């Protein structure tokens, strides 16, 4: 899902028509998001403090307030197919300032989890998983760094899974328990061949 200007066609069409159609609403979506996020988006009165606090808002079409509204109305399709869903830096400024005690950041995280269940996910997220699966680290060691560590009188491999690779097995077991690696590999292959 490379980020492009504009939305996918279906979403573009949907956004051009701002009327609310009853058959697009899924009340169970609201409930799932609330459960996953441990938050209360149905309490939102759309004041917009969240969007005003958002570092991503001034430089994109990402509007956190819109996503909270989608959670409240149960607009699952519209929320999960919007590429802006992935522009939240999870800085929690909106959460700190929300006058209704909602955690919009956690609402976004819940929606991202639900999107992944439908294979909607940017590849870079999956690549982090693949790196952790192989080495235990999302940002693994490299030769330049090994040389620098040596010069500092440290072990070239830090005392993590790098120096103790026998621990990687446990990590793989946890990830496999949820079949995450399998799904990640499949989606990356579908996207990149």
């Amino acid at each position, binding site marked *: 899902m490379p*980020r492009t200007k504009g939305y996918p066609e279906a979403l573009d069409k949907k956004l051009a028509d701002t009327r609310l159609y009853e058959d697009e609403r899924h009340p169970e979506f609201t409930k799932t998001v609330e459960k*996953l996020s441990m938050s209360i988006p149905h309490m939102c009165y759309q004041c917009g403090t969240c969007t005003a606090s958002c*570092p*991503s808002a001034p430089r994109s079409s990402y509007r956190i307030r819109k996503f909270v509204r989608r959670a409240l109305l149960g607009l699952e399709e519209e929320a999960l197919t919007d590429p802006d869903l*992935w*522009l*939240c*830096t*999870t*800085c*929690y*400024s909106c*959460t*700190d300032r929300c006058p209704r005690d909602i*955690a919009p*950041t956690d609402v976004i*995280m*819940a929606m*991202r*989890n639900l999107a*992944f269940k439908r294979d909607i*996910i*940017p590849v*870079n*997220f999956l*690549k*982090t*998983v693949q790196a*952790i699966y192989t080495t*235990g*680290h*999302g*940002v*693994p*060691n490299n030769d*330049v*760094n090994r040389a*620098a*560590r040596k*010069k*500092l009188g*440290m072990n070239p491999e*830090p*005392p*993590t*899974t*790098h120096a*103790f690779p*026998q*621990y*990687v*097995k*446990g*990590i793989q*077991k*946890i*990830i496999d*328990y*949820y079949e*995450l690696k399998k799904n990640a590999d499949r989606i990356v292959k579908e996207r990149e061949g």
Partner: protein
Amino acid sequence: MREYAFFLGCIAPNRYPGAESASYKTAEKLGIKLLDLEGASCCPAPGAFGSISLEIWYAMAARNLCLAEQMKKDIALICNGCYKSIWEVNHKLKHHKELKEKVNEVLKTIDMEFKGTIDVWHLAELFYDPEIVGVQKIRDSVKVSLEGTRIAVHYGCHLMKPRKERHFGTTEHPTWLEEMVGALGAEPVEYRNKMLCCGAGGGVRGYDLVHSLDITNEKMINLKEARVDALTEVCPFCQLQFDRGQIEIEEKFGVKYNLPVLHYCELLGLAQGMSPQELALDLHGISCEPFLQKVL
């Protein structure tokens, strides 16, 4: 001497080893011994991993917590992202029975169990806490005063936010890190929109680099306005975004700032008399030379 299991994370040991090395040495001078947490992994990255599945994120972070529980030591760490994963998962699992049971079901497959017997701390908060170290002790440990330098502070996001779940007080205008910079003899400098995110988190750096750098660039503009000699932070991921990010900003936007970016532990190391070589400052994307010339 208080002992903590030192949770390294990824970016400090694998990109800025000077920050790791400085943490051991500076902490030891302040009465804190950092022990290796053998077999620890990525925390895992709260933005990238948590976005895929919070459930797996809990289980993976719990594995790291179990390693420290086996050592019977509290965890100390030096990265805000790690703090989000390790502190928050520890907190959530301690308070949600159902969640803990679910995680333990998975951990059983690798013969581990989350018990909830330890606490998690950021090294910076241990340094600031007067009952453990405190600003006065930091001041007393200074050998090379950073007098005459103007230093700005970046708090980052996941250490103090969300405010209601943490214990740091205000997130609109905190000043405790400035106090710690002041203790080194430097002048802490205020700048516009200090609490703005660095732009790297939530997987955005990988998803849309230009968008993420644009946020960083806004911070850089505000920092330039304040005419600072260096920026200090307590999160290696923010450090990466500001330090290597400046090179990317030059490539993408054609603007040059050349602002040295140092982890607070590196800065403290300098003030306690460590040499730039001992801190591997040459690994930084942006040269720290102009700043060092003012100090040394």
